[in-house]
């Protein structure tokens, strides 16, 4: 038996893709390595999910519940505790190898929707040296312990990184009665939204150290403290500014990286700016019939975008299976100026496309310009903490063009 599509990952991207693919009549198999569906949503118990998609402010578990209910209603075939180990491509057929408590299994499929989410950066990627002791967690690990398993990871906490994830964790710890002694941020501005600075830090009088770096973690069996220093404009530690801060727990919240190991192994073309694969407007990778959505594609700050990508990937898989998917790796889109990335990296120029992007630095009065066609748009403020969406209209794209530069200045 051959599936029409195998969806790898049961987070919001994979759930939305599976539901849409099933609605479109495809024969779907959904695989996830955890024993529950929803990806990271069940551990994000705060509100802030679904304002666009459901027009309601839901918590992570509630958002997940709605998708999971729909998935079950549609009777999508799924396997949990099933970790995908390998993908192989033979012509236009693909094989997905996974391991579960029942053993090693291999299934054949016409297409794949890769929705494996992201992994968290760990302390060694940040160059934090010192002792290997208990009490060091990534934000996601701490969140899972607290909000799925009801275990408090520690009492005196230092958080590394001021992105929304770090800020939200600072509030969670403070709410549960821990003392959050500092949120330490390397950059001169916070990584997260202004609203999270207010409701996560200021509400609980948690100090934010901007332009500071955690150099070292010290302890014997358990964390006993960290060494912190100020940094200069080049992010180098300033000698003489070091100080010690006692604590029993360090939370690393320094960004997510698309989990794309299996795609890399296949030799899929990658984008160094997103850390994910290069895709076209169908969210198809450089290997035909393999589509990517959600945090495996680019780090999204809103689940609404993730679901949107899952649905696009499913619609593309449906066309691929039918043999009607138009190749659209024709015009290469490049990011320049204060622009970190733009996705998709290729478009056909034959239809309207929504581009997702993120700037490098906060900027007021930003001008977005498609250089080759002279189209400009102004935004009052842009921040790295907020992804933007911009629509590129087909009638604006000249037919002879091979490259399009989106510049932010």
């Amino acid at each position: 038996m051959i599936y029409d599509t195998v969806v790898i990952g049961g987070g919001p991207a994979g759930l939305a893709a599976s539901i849409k693919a099933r609605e479109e009549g495809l024969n779907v198999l959904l695989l996830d390595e955890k024993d529950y569906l929803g990806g990271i949503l069940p551990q994000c118990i705060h509100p802030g999910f679904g304002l666009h998609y459901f027009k309601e402010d839901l918590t992570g578990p509630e958002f997940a519940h709605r998708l999971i209910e729909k998935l079950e209603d549609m009777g999508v075939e799924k396997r949990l505790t099933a970790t995908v180990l390998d993908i192989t491509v033979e012509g236009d057929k693909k094989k997905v190898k996974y391991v579960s408590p029942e053993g090693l299994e291999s299934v054949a499929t016409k297409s794949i929707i890769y929705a494996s989410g992201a992994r968290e950066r760990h302390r060694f990627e940040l160059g934090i040296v010192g002792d290997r002791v208990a009490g060091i967690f990534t934000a996601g690990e701490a969140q899972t312990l607290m909000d799925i398993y009801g275990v408090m990871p520690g009492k005196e906490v230092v958080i590394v990184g001021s992105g929304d994830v770090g800020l939200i964790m600072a509030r969670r710890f403070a709410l549960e009665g821990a003392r959050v002694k500092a949120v330490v941020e390397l950059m001169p501005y916070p990584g997260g939204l202004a609203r999270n600075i207010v409701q996560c830090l200021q509400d609980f009088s948690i100090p934010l150290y901007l332009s500071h770096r955690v150099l070292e973690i010290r302890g014997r069996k358990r964390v006993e403290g960290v060494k912190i220093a100020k940094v200069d404009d080049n992010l180098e530690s300033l000698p003489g500014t070091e100080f010690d801060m006692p604590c029993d727990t360090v939370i690393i919240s320094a960004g997510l990286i698309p989990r794309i190991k299996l795609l890399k192994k296949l030799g899929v073309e990658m984008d160094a700016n997103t850390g994910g694969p290069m895709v076209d407007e169908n969210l198809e990778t450089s290997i035909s019939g393999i589509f990517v959505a959600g945090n495996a594609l680019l780090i999204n700050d809103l689940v609404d975008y993730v679901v949107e990508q899952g649905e696009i990937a499913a619609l593309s898989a449906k066309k691929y299976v039918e043999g009607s998917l138009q190749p659209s790796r024709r015009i290469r889109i490049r990011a320049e100026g204060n622009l970190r990335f733009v996705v998709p990296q290729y478009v056909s120029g034959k239809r309207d496309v929504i581009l997702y992007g993120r700037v490098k630095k906060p900027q007021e009065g930003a001008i977005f310009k498609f250089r080759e066609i002279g189209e400009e748009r102004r935004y009052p403020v842009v921040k790295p903490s907020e992804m933007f969406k911009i629509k590129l209209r087909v009638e604006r794209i000249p037919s002879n063009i091979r490259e399009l530069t989106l510049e932010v200045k």
Partner: protein
Amino acid sequence: MSKIYRFTCIVCPLGCYVEAELEGENLKIQGCKCPRGEEWVRSEIFEPKRVLMSVIKVKNGVYPVVSVKTDRPVPKDRISQIMRFLSNLEISAPVKIGQVIVENVLDTGANIVATKDVEKK
């Protein structure tokens, strides 16, 4: 004597920088770009409120805790009391999403509601 407040508005991602001056009952707000923001500043000064989330212990469940939230914002200065109250609570599985676990918690007018299912072990 007037009192000056400074805020970053949290109503939308724009994050306006707002200054407000309170003189007796009279509030002057500067820097807001919309009426929703002014409304928020008013409530931040007179009665700041937040939606609260936490987890509650579950007996005989497939998971040891269930995530919960208040079904409406509660006064900020009651948050630590509510958290203490919740930490002493234990309920029995099964728990259903949307189930009211505590009605009118500590007389705040808000209910504590489960945000996921926890089945019986």
